[in-house]
């Protein structure tokens, strides 16, 4: 196994083996593509964790997620937007959980878009909390992959970055920023 001789996060490595090693640390990894995204949020760790842990609230800042139903403490059902008013769905299971620190998940076998990952919360002193999302997914390949990529509307890396920014906005300001002028424009933006 490759070991890093530096302190840069493995998700930023140019070396395939370093990235693969990190991928294997995600329990029940659903795929081989790795994304790491970090944001600092000027709020206490416990508060951020609590908001995130209530999955039903995630659509407030995850733009492409239409609805999350919590089926049991470990199991949730996800409905994700696709073009033409259609949706894709899957079940996700919590694979690891540490109160106030981390939540890891993986989609179940029959998922349309296999995905897995974890979200970690670390104290950042007077700057609040450092939130890191690590996502492992199946890279869309071939014809089917293209259809899936289209369904997701955006590259997962960009989606993750934007979702984290919206989470930050919501936690720091109490709302997700919009430049819409009218309710009609806002609806259109969300669609």
């Amino acid at each position, binding site marked *: 196994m490759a070991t890093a001789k530096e302190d840069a996060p493995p998700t930023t490595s140019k070396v395939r083996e370093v990235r693969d090693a990190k991928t294997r640390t995600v329990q029940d990894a659903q795929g081989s593509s790795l994304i790491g995204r970090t944001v600092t949020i000027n709020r206490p760790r416990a508060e951020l964790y609590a908001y995130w842990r209530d999955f039903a609230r995630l659509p407030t800042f995850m733009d492409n997620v239409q609805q999350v139903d919590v089926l049991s403490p470990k199991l949730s059902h996800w409905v994700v937007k696709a073009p033409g008013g259609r949706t894709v769905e899957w079940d996700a299971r919590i694979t690891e959980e540490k109160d106030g620190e981390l939540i890891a998940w993986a989609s179940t076998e029959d998922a349309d878009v296999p995905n897995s990952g974890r979200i970690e919360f670390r104290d950042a002193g007077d700057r609040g909390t450092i939130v890191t999302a690590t996502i492992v997914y199946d890279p869309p390949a071939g014809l089917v992959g293209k259809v899936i990529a289209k369904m997701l509307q955006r590259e997962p890396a*960009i989606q993750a970055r934007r979702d984290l920014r919206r989470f930050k906005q919501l936690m720091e300001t109490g709302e997700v920023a919009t430049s*819409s*002028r009218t309710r009609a424009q806002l609806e259109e933006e969300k669609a």
Partner: protein
Amino acid sequence: MRALTWHGKHDVRVDTVDDPEILKPRDAIIKITSTAICGSDLHLYDGFIPTMKAGDILGHEFMGEVVETGPKSTLQKGQRVVVPFTIACGSCYHCGKHQYSACDNGNPADNQDIGMELYGQPMSGLFGYSHLTGGYAGGQAEYVRVPFSDVGPIVVPDGLSDDEVLFLSDILPTGWQAAENADIEPGDTVAVWGCGPVGLFAVQSAFLMGAARVIAIDHFPRRLELARKFGAETINFEESKTYEALMEMTGGIGPDAVIDAVGLEAHGFFVDNVVDQIKASLMLGTDRIHSIRQAIVACRKGGRVSMPAVYGGIVDKFPLGAFMEKGLTLKTGQTSVQHYMPGLLNAIVEGKIDTTFLISHRMSLEDAPKGYKMFHDNQNEVTKVVLKPGFDAGTAIAAE
């Protein structure tokens, strides 16, 4: 409502569009009573700023009356407010340090990608200034939606006219921040490139901060005259060689601090444009020289460079050697308007700062396209255009 909308280079129109609505808890809706056209708006008018879309409502210098508030707004209906052009949340790390123009949250998440690509960090949100800074509708309209209205707008006491306080929205704080960024010490000589609104407020601010001499540079006689009114000495760069004049006027030392209040409009935003205009080796003694380059070369050793002027991209022929060898310091940035508003409002009340001298034309919102053209074509006579949605079309009032 009626609003001034952008449709392309030198094409702005007053259109009828849907009224703004309260969309978020901290929003307020302001009925505009006065709104100005800014030098920065000319960058949009000339088509220099990318990410504009047809139909975008312009305007980032505005004030008016609160007519509607969201549940978390601290404003009250009927209050008169001036609104900062920077959209800041008040609760992120940068806002906590009063670096409002670096706010993390004022720009919608999707729009932040462009700034990440261009500058390595997302830009904050601004009113009426392209989608790079959020795509927010501006205030050259009858009404505007103001997000984070509990943080930005400042309530104006009765007894002060619109004309006296309108410039708190941008150019007065910008001129002030420019002087502050020059770290002026008592007795200093400060040189200011550009006698537009920003330069003229920088001149006034520099004196208030203790400068012994301010030397103002432009080529419009009327603008130079205004600078002289505030006690500045002047250089007309069409008639004299700026660098040589500055050296002679400062006993061969150079100004202690230099302020670039010209910006990308001066002689072209694009690199190739600039390169064409640069005389081969020395980069001195020609009026086609980019102002920041000239300011750096003229500045004394160990001096300070302040750059309120807006630049958008990558520049060539930046005098990095002069900058390093002379040990200069450069400070710049979009203005953190919210930080300066209360102090400057006081200065206006106390009569320390004059603002109304700047306004050369007042006209109806309906006549805004004419105002843009005038401001663009005749910078000598037209120093500032204020649009009044309350005026009837065709009512234009020019100062004296």
